[in-house]
């Protein structure tokens, strides 16, 4: 697992350094059946190999078009994360594709990396900086989970529930966004995302989104969430107490 993570990290680092060139679909950090019995293998397969692959292909198409014009080349050289923060500078005819496919690409990458067969209650934090931050902003880790769950239940149609860091204030925020929108669009750092598009749970749970969310908490990887929090908080600006 550690090897897989390290490989992916180096891989993505290279991708970021080179800029948003021709992006491959990041491999899953574990086997397709690794999250059973909580998230079923069939869903992991379709989710990664079909949905995430399609976003990858569409994003690459849009990046190719941005690269082709002198005035938009610079946008194609940004990392996708950064590109999503510059949507208003993307030409109108490409903007929705960048927003939807770029969002889909980064969101699914974050999602799959946020889950682990070793996750769930076993590695829920009881101390450390993430624990302190969640307690400070939501009252307790349990209370954070409750509010995040509510945000995920309230989304009507397709969308994601998010935990994000506002780099200007250091505040942690829970939000629900439609379709493949991400906190990156408004300059925030996404830390945890929960996909509540029906494709994320329909094969196993059909309309029972509540049961899917319960399964999510059984595989959420608190270690990688802590690492993401520390990175985001460390590079956050502002005098906010972190």
């Amino acid at each position, binding site marked *: 697992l550690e090897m897989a993570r390290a490989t992916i990290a180096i891989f993505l680092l290279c991708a970021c350094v080179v800029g948003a060139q021709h992006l491959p679909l990041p491999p899953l950090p574990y086997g397709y059946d690794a999250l059973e019995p909580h998230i079923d293998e069939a869903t992991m397969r379709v989710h990664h190999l079909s949905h995430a692959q399609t976003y990858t292909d569409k994003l690459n198409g849009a990046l190719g078009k941005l690269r082709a014009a002198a005035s938009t080349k610079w946008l194609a050289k940004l990392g996708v994360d950064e590109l999503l923060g510059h949507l208003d500078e993307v030409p109108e005819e490409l903007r929705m594709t960048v927003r939807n496919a770029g969002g889909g690409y980064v969101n699914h990458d974050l999602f799959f990396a946020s889950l682990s067969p070793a996750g769930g209650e076993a590695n829920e934090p009881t101390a450390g900086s993430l624990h302190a931050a969640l307690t400070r902003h939501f009252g307790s880790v349990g209370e954070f989970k409750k509010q995040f769950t509510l945000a995920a239940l309230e989304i009507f*149609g397709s969308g994601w529930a998010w935990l994000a860091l506002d780099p200007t204030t250091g505040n942690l925020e829970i939000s629900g966004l439609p379709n493949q929108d991400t906190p990156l669009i408004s300059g925030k750092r996404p830390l945890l995302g929960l996909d509540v598009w029906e494709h994320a749970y329909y094969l196993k749970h059909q309309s029972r989104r509540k049961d899917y969310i319960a399964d999510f908490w059984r595989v959420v990887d608190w270690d990688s969430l802590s690492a993401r929090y520390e990175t985001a908080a460390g590079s956050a600006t502002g005098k906010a107490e972190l």
Partner: protein
Amino acid sequence: LPAQQGKAVCRERNFVIKPVRRLASMPFAVRCLVTAALAGSAAGLRTPAKLGTAGKAAPAAKFDRRGVLAGAMSAFLAAPALAEYTLPDLPYPYEALEPYIDAATMRFHHDKHHATYVANVNKALAGKPEKSILDLQKDAIAAGPAVRNSGGGHYNHALFWDEMGPSSGKGPTGELASKIDEAFGSYDKFKEEFSAKAAGRFGSGWCWLGVKSDGKLAIDTTPNQDNPLMDGGCETKMIPILGLDVWEHAYYLKYQNRRPEYISAFFNVINWDKVASNYEKYAKQGKGIPF
């Protein structure tokens, strides 16, 4: 409940509450007739003749249980009915649209998703005066998210079940067919444009064929459970006569992410006779299809 009491509750539920609910959703004219009939029979009820010591019949009818019940029902029916929408039955068995739309999907889609919209719109409107589900659509967005989402959801799915049927191999005929040719060039070109737009609706939503105010047909899509009947619901103002649900729940069990395949399959189960009849009766007259 003790068996006897339980039976009484069951009887009341089946012979009082359910019929009252059904009658309460009928048009006003029907309710008036029923009210008159019940009032008449209530007036005619008397307590059973008690043979007094002199063998005379009992005095004129007093309040008895049946009279009170009939009176209450009359009041219930004459007054504006409760805003209670009901889940319409599917016009065909769950497996009727196989192999294009699978039985499992029809089950979940109708029995869970549509049922939830009905329950939620009833909850949202509890205690407020009744509008037909059709009339509810116009101001649904202004009425707030609960009415918009669940009221829209109920109407959209009612139309969806109504316009489909077992595969017949038949396409549109008659005036509707010529209107399709006029607007799109041909039935094939209509399918092309409809397919492209249905595939292009990102996230959850619907693709619609509708009649504009100038009588011409058009295709457009809406997000989530919005529809073209709603003020602000669709870029194209039109009366929908055909809708395709492109929420993932409509196709995921059989097609997963292969939405274009589902859209292709859909054309096989459109009941064009029904669609044409709804067009003639309502949309052509500038009226929405009622349910």
